[in-house]
C-alpha cells in the first residue's frame, strides 16, 4: 500500500515495521511527531521522558534488558543526552539501540544550527542519513540491524526538510515482536569504571574498523555513474536538491555518513573528473575525503550556513548570481506571536513595566522578547534561565537586588530547571524565578509531561505538584498568581523582589489552546469609540485582535485615531480592559 507520509510519520512507521516496541523521547521541533505517531501503534511502549538524557538512559536500560529500543530527540536534545551517549558507545547495547537526532539547518525552530553528524565521529557511533520519507522508513530498519550485528548504538539523522516534507511511501507488514528480554549480568561490559572502560575502549576502535569495512558494501552507499565529467558526493536531503538540477551527473550517495567507505569513495573518484561534495552545515564529509588525499570542491563554493535548495546548488556550481528583475514591493514582516488570550502576555507585560532584567528560556514565551512586550532578555537553552538569573544576581550583588528575574515554562522546568533551582536555594540566591505553568508543553503542540497527569499513551499518571517540589528544594518564598490578573501579578512580583533570598512565583493558567482545560471563551471585547482617547496603551499588549485605526482629527481634540478589537480573534481574556484608563473597553 502506498500513502502520503511525512518523514516523521515514516520514521515512526519504520520503527513499528522493524518490530520495535520500546521508545522514549522528549518533544522538540522537528522531531516531535515521530513519537506522537509511534505512540498510536498497537502494542507499543512509548514515553515522554522529562528530558533527552533520561530518554536515552531509559532506552539504554531497555536495550540492556534485551529489547530493541529507540530514543528520539532534536539536535540540541543530543547535547542534553551527551553524557550517557559517549559511554553507551563503550558498553554496547545488548538488545539494540537507535538514537534519532532531528537537526534543524536554517534554525526554523531552534536556538542554534549544530551539525550532529559531528556527534557520530565524536562518540564513535555509526550514523545513517535518509534523504526522504521512504528512505527514512527503510533506514530505521537497517539501523536496528546494524545495532544488533555490531553491538553498537546507531544514530539516524533527520533534518527539518526530511522530517517535515511529505512524499509517497510504500508500507510493508511489520515484523512480529520478539520478546528477547531477560536479566543478564556482565559487569566487565556494563560497569564502566576505568579498568573495564579501558578494555572496552579498545573494543570501540575494533568495532569502528569493522563498521568501516561494512560501509564499503553497505546497500545504501550507492554509486550512480552517468556523465563522468562531474561527480557529486552527497547524503540526505541535499541529494534530492542536486538531482533536481543536475540529473545527468554522476553521484555517490552515502546512506551511512559515518564511518565513511574509503575504498568506495576512491573508486568513485577514479571514475569521475571533477568532484563536488554537497552537504549542508559543516564540511563533515568534505574534510574526511580531503584527508584521504582526494581532490574535491566543497565549502569553497557552497554555504556553511542554512539549509540548501536546488537553486543554491545550481548557482554555486554554475557560478550564477541571483536572478535579476524580480518585481518587488516591501511589506511588513509577520513574526509568530503569542495567541489571543495567551496567559504569558499578562506576565511579560508586567515584567516589562517593572523594568527588570529577565533571563528567559525555551518555550512560546521566548517570543515575548519582541516588541511591544520586550519582557525577556536572554535565551540560551532549556533550563538556562534559572542558573543565569542566579549567576547574574550573584555577580551584580547589591546592584542586582530586586532587578533579576528568571522565567521558565512548566515543561522546561521539569526538563532541566529543578537542579539549578536547588542550587539557588543552596547558594542563597537573591533572584526571583517565575514558572509559567500553562499545564502543557505548548510550543511543540501540547505534549504531556509529569505535571499534566497523563502519559502519551493516555493513561492517568501522577500530577507533579510544583509547589510541593519547589518547597522540597528549599525555596521558602513561594507564591501563585493568575497572569490574567495584572494588578495582583505585579504586586506579588514586587513583594518577592523586595525579599532577601530566592523566591518562586508560579504564574498559573492553562494554555488557551489546551483542549483538556475546557476553557470557555469569554465574550469578545469591544472598544467604545466615544471613550477611546487613542492613547495606544492597549496596543502595548501586542494582542493580535487589537489594532490601531487612524482617524481624521477633530477640531479641539488631540486624538489621531482609536483602537479597534477584531471580534473574530478576541477571546475576551480581559487584559486590555485592565490596562485601559478610560473605561473604553467593554
Amino acid at each position, binding site marked *: 500500500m502506498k500513502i*502520503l507520509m511525512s518523514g516523521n510519520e515514516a520514521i515512526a512507521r519504520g520503527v513499528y515495521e522493524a518490530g520495535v516496541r520500546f521508545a522514549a523521547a522528549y518533544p522538540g521541533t522537528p522531531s516531535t511527531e515521530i513519537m506522537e505517531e509511534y505512540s498510536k501503534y498497537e502494542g507499543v511502549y512509548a514515553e515522554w521522558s522529562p528530558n533527552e538524557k533520561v530518554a536515552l538512559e531509559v532506552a539504554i536500560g531497555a536495550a540492556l534488558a534485551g529489547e530493541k529500543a529507540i530514543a528520539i530527540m532534536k539536535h540540541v536534545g543530543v547535547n542534553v543526552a551527551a553524557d550517557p551517549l559517549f559511554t553507551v558507545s563503550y558498553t554496547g547495547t545488548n538488545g539494540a539501540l537507535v538514537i534519532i537526532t532531528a537537526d534543524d539547518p536554517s534554525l526554523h*525552530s531552534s536556538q542554534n544550527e549544530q551539525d550532529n553528524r559531528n556527534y557520530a565521529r565524536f562518540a564513535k557511533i555509526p550514523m545513517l542519513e535518509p534523504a526522504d520519507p521512504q528512505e527514512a522508513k527503510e533506514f530505521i530498519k537497517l539501523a536496528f540491524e546494524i545495532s544488533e550485528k555490531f553491538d553498537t548504538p546507531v544514530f539516524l539523522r533527520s533534518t527539518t526538510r526530511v522530517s517535515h516534507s*511529505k*512524499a509517497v511511501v510504500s508500507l510493508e507488514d511489520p515484523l512480529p515482536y520478539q520478546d528477547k528480554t531477560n536479566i543478564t549480568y556482565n559487569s566487565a561490559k556494563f560497569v564502566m569504571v576505568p579498568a573495564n572502560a579501558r578494555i572496552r575502549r579498545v573494543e570501540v576502535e575494533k568495532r569502528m574498523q569493522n563498521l568501516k569495512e561494512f560501509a564499503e558494501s553497505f546497500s545504501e552507499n550507492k554509486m550512480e555513474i552517468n556523465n563522468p565529467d562531474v561527480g557529486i558526493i552527497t547524503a540526505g536531503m541535499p541529494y534530492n536538491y542536486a538531482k533536481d538540477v543536475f540529473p545527468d551527473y554522476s553521484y555517490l550517495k552515502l546512506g551511512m555518513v559515518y564511518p565513511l567507505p574509503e575504498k568506495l569513495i576512491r573508486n568513485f573518484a577514479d571514475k569521475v573528473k571533477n568532484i563536488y561534495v554537497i552537504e549542508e552545515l559543516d564540511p563533515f564529509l568534505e574534510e574526511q575525503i580531503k584527508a584521504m588525499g582526494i581532490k574535491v570542491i566543497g565549502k569553497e563554493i557552497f554555504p556553511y550556513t542554512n539549509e540548501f535548495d536546488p537553486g543554491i546548488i545550481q548557482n554555486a556550481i554554475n557560478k550564477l548570481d541571483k536572478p535579476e528583475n524580480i*518585481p518587488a514591493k516591501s511589506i511588513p514582516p509577520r513574526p509568530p506571536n503569542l495567541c489571543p488570550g495567551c496567559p504569558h502576555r499578562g506576565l511579560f507585560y508586567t515584567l516589562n513595566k517593572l523594568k527588570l532584567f529577565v533571563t528567559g528560556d525555551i518555550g512560546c514565551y521566548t517570543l515575548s522578547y519582541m516588541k511591544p512586550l520586550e519582557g525577556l532578555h536572554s535565551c540560551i537553552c532549556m533550563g538556562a534561565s534559572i542558573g543565569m538569573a542566579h549567576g547574574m544576581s550573584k555577580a551584580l550583588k547589591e546592584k542586582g537586588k530586586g532587578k533579576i528575574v528568571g522565567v521558565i515554562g512548566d515543561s522546561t522546568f521539569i526538563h532541566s530547571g529543578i537542579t539549578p533551582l536547588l542550587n539557588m536555594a543552596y547558594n542563597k540566591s537573591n533572584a526571583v524565578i517565575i514558572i509559567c505553568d500553562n499545564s502543557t508543553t505548548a510550543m511543540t503542540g501540547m505534549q504531556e509531561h509529569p505535571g499534566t497527569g497523563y502519559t502519551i499513551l493516555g493513561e492517568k499518571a501522577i500530577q507533579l505538584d510544583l509547589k510541593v517540589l519547589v518547597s522540597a528544594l528549599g525555596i521558602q518564598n513561594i507564591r501563585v498568581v493568575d497572569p490574567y490578573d495584572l494588578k495582583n501579578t505585579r504586586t506579588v512580583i514586587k513583594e518577592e523582589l523586595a525579599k532577601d533570598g530566592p523566591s518562586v512565583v508560579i504564574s498559573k493558567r492553562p494554555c488557551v489552546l489546551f483542549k483538556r482545560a475546557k476553557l470557555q471563551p469569554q465574550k469578545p471585547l469591544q472598544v467604545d469609540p466615544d471613550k477611546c482617547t487613542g492613547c495606544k496603551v492597549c496596543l502595548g499588549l501586542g494582542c493580535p485582535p487589537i489594532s490601531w485605526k487612524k482617524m481624521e482629527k477633530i477640531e479641539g481634540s488631540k486624538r489621531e485615531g482609536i483602537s479597534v478589537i477584531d471580534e473574530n480573534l478576541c477571546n475576551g481574556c480581559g487584559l486590555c480592559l485592565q490596562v485601559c484608563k478610560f473605561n473604553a473597553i467593554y
Partner: protein
Amino acid sequence: MKDKDVKSILLAGVGGQGILRASDIMCMAMMEAGLDVKKSEVHGMAQRGGCVTSHVRYGSKVYSPLAKLGSIDLLVAFEKMETLRYLNYLTKDATIIVNAEEIYPPAVNSGEVPYPKDAISFLKSNYKQVREIDATALAKQSGNIKTANVVLLGAISTLLHMTASIWEDVIKKAFPEKLAKVNLTAFQMGRDA
C-alpha cells in the same frame, strides 16, 4: 502553466488558515491521479500567527520537495499581502490566485506601518494571470467560515488536470463525515468562482 516534467505550486498565508491541510489534500489528489508528488513545509515556532508556506511539487518523478527561486508555476496566497512576500519564487509567467482576506501583522496593528493597499494592481501590472477570489466570503456562504482553504482548492482545481471526482473523493476522506458535505459545497463554490 507551461508544460514541463515537474511543476511547482506554492501555498502561502498565515498560521491558522488551513494551508497545510489544503496542501495535504492537493497532494493526495495528485497521488490518486498517479503522479509522483512531494511537499515541504515548516511547522513554525509558536502555534499560530506567523507566515506559513507549503511547497508542492509534482510530475513523473520528483526529487526535491522544495522549489528553487524563480521556479514556482502557481502561487496561491491565502492572505492578500503574503502574495508579495514570495514573488522571487515565481516564474515570469506564473499564475497567481489571491484570497481577498487581509490579516494584519503586528506592525500594522500597532499603526507603525500601513497595510499594503495596492497589492492586486501591483500584481496585475507585473503578471498576466492574477485572480482575486474572496474565499472567506464564499466560505461563509457555504455555511462554515473555516472552509476558505477548500474554496481555494476549488479554484486551484480548475488549473490542474485531475478530474473533479478525484478531488471530491479525497476531500470526503480528509474530513469527518459531518464536515464532508460543507467542504464539498465550498470546493464547488471555489470551482465556480
